[in-house]
């Protein structure tokens, strides 16, 4: 190796680094959740539209379910809405809406306008539960198994592909295990 090939090799390595950086640029803002394969955080929240009734994490034990964090101020939630609606209608899994950092009136208007896809909606008004789930964007969706363990998390909108490849196979595996 002489003094001419060395800078060339360095340059090629730099180009490769830049190409890799550009390829993964859209994934770099995604933060891997430390909660995967850990018990879902405890919560005790009122039902939207029925504040006297509260549900906890224990209320959901025994069946797999999705927790979908959404809010009326969240634009991507509108994009995701038809996908969530279709999944909930298919009855393949319980879809729990988690309305966070939102006003009741705004949330209700939003549901009236776009339709309510959820099996049940809990209200996390001050966002405490969303912090416990490590939510930093909206929407975020967690798949929780019958034992209350988080097995998958989607940051950003759900897509039919993600449901087909990531969520439904896991749900099928859980049901086969029961």
């Amino acid at each position: 190796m002489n003094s001419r090939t060395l800078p060339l090799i360095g340059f090629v390595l730099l180009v490769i680094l830049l190409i890799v950086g550009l390829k993964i640029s859209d994934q770099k803002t995604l933060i891997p959740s430390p909660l995967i394969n850990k018990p879902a955080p405890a919560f005790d929240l009122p039902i939207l539209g029925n504040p006297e009734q509260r549900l906890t994490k224990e209320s959901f034990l025994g069946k797999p379910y999705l927790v979908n964090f959404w809010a009326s101020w969240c634009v991507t939630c509108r994009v995701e809405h038809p996908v969530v609606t279709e999944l909930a209608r298919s009855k393949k899994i319980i879809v729990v809406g988690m309305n966070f950092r939102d006003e009741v009136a705004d949330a209700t208007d939003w549901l009236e306008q776009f339709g309510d896809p959820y099996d049940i909606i809990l209200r996390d008004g001050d966002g405490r539960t969303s912090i416990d789930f490590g939510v930093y964007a909206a929407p975020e969706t967690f798949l929780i198994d019958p034992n209350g363990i988080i097995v998958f998390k989607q940051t950003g909108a759900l897509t039919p592909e993600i449901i087909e490849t990531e969520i439904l196979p896991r749900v099928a595996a859980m049901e086969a295990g029961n």
Partner: protein
Amino acid sequence: MKLKALLLLLLTFSVFAQEPLVFENQQQQDRFDQLTKELRCLVCQNQNLADSDAPLAHDLRQEVFEMLQTGQSNDQIKQFLVQRYGDFVLYRPPVQTNTYLLWLAPLLLFIGGALVVIASIRKRASLLASDETTNENPDN
């Protein structure tokens, strides 16, 4: 007079821009300032909690403040956030198996650079030396 009123107005805005956190003492405020500088805002990921204006940063500052009030240590507060958001929330990554390379990289680069420099100095010295020997040779 107008200027004074304007200044006063600006002052009020700057006061309202921050949530009104009342600290028990200067030491607690210093800890709060230090912690929020070292913790990353998850929404605008190149800002720390102290600088970010995102609603999540606001809530997390409040969380840090309340944990300080209840007498939790800096490590406990950081642990609270790491459990939820992962190591990414820390601007200063912990030294552990998956970050050894990160922490050692500057040292490795330094050693690598030093080796290159030493090698090139030796090469030059030997070239010079051979030049001198050829010059000293009266037959040439």
